[in-house]
């Protein structure tokens, strides 16, 4: 039993970001108590830290998980269209999928900030959504490639940017995800303020 060992700081910061200010003390206290009292002595530092991080992710807004699923779903639908229904002009598809992606990340930031009462959480919500979505998208793309890799599909993949694009594009969305999340967070804070001021 250790009264002084601490879990990773980044995990505590993430926990703080996704909880309402009034909830952080009791929730982080509960986790710290369990971490020091039973997890650390039984599992050691590395596995105890992993346990803590896993617990923190259970507090991440369910909205983030939902938006990550939506984001990767739209990305995979777009990829499937490019692979299996190739077109000469990708302009409409790319405009539509970019617009949906932007709206999804903005909404993720908006919701995360709305729940936590902190607009800064929007950045974490947006980037985390993009990060989770990129893992799901890359895995989904790999599954699609494993299922269908006949010469015709391979030619369509090459003409639509190649498989490297399927891997790199979702990862490139993490930083824009943070920026769009901030925008969502600011919009959320503004709307909340407007809502509070308009109350009698």
């Amino acid at each position, binding site marked *: 039993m250790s*009264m002084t060992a601490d879990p990773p700081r980044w995990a505590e910061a993430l926990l703080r970001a996704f909880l309402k200010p009034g909830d952080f*003390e*009791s*929730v*982080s*206290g*509960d986790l710290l108590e369990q971490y020091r009292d039973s997890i650390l002595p039984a599992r050691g530092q590395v596995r105890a830290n992993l346990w803590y991080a896993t*617990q923190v*992710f*259970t507090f991440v807004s369910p909205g983030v998980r939902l938006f990550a699923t939506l984001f990767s779903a739209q990305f995979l639908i777009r990829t499937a269209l490019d692979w299996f229904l190739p077109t000469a002009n990708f302009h409409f598809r790319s405009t539509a999928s970019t617009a949906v992606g932007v709206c999804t990340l903005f909404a993720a930031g908006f919701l995360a900030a709305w729940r936590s009462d902190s607009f800064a959480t929007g950045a974490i919500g947006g980037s985390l959504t993009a990060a989770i979505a990129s893992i799901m998208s890359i895995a989904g793309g790999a599954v699609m490639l494993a299922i269908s890799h006949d010469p015709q599909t391979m030619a369509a993949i090459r003409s639509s940017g190649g498989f490297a694009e399927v891997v790199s594009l979702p990862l490139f969305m993490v930083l824009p995800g943070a920026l769009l999340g901030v925008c969502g967070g600011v919009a959320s804070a503004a709307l909340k303020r407007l809502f509070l001021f308009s109350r009698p």
Partner: protein
Amino acid sequence: MADILGTFEQAVLLSILRLGEDAYGRAILREVQERLDRDVAAGAVHATLERLAKKGLVASRPGTGTPMRGGRARRFYRVQAKGVRALNDARAKADNLWHGLRWPLKGYI
């Protein structure tokens, strides 16, 4: 009519009742895990407590911190009258569903 409770909500409310004065986050989590006989995420219990509080089925008050918790205060929960009514209602509904059937079920398929 009282709220219709899900199984997990019932597990959390009943754990709070069992723990009495000692019903705080970690203790509730442990009790729910024991009763459901499975691993439960702390986030799931927190989200449920938040939802139950919003519905007015539980109330909470801050307690004191301990060195083990880095001095951070506990939050103690109590089931409200509305929560007790909801639990009674859930139990009555479940009893009604099972009425006339022998348990454990045997010989129906």
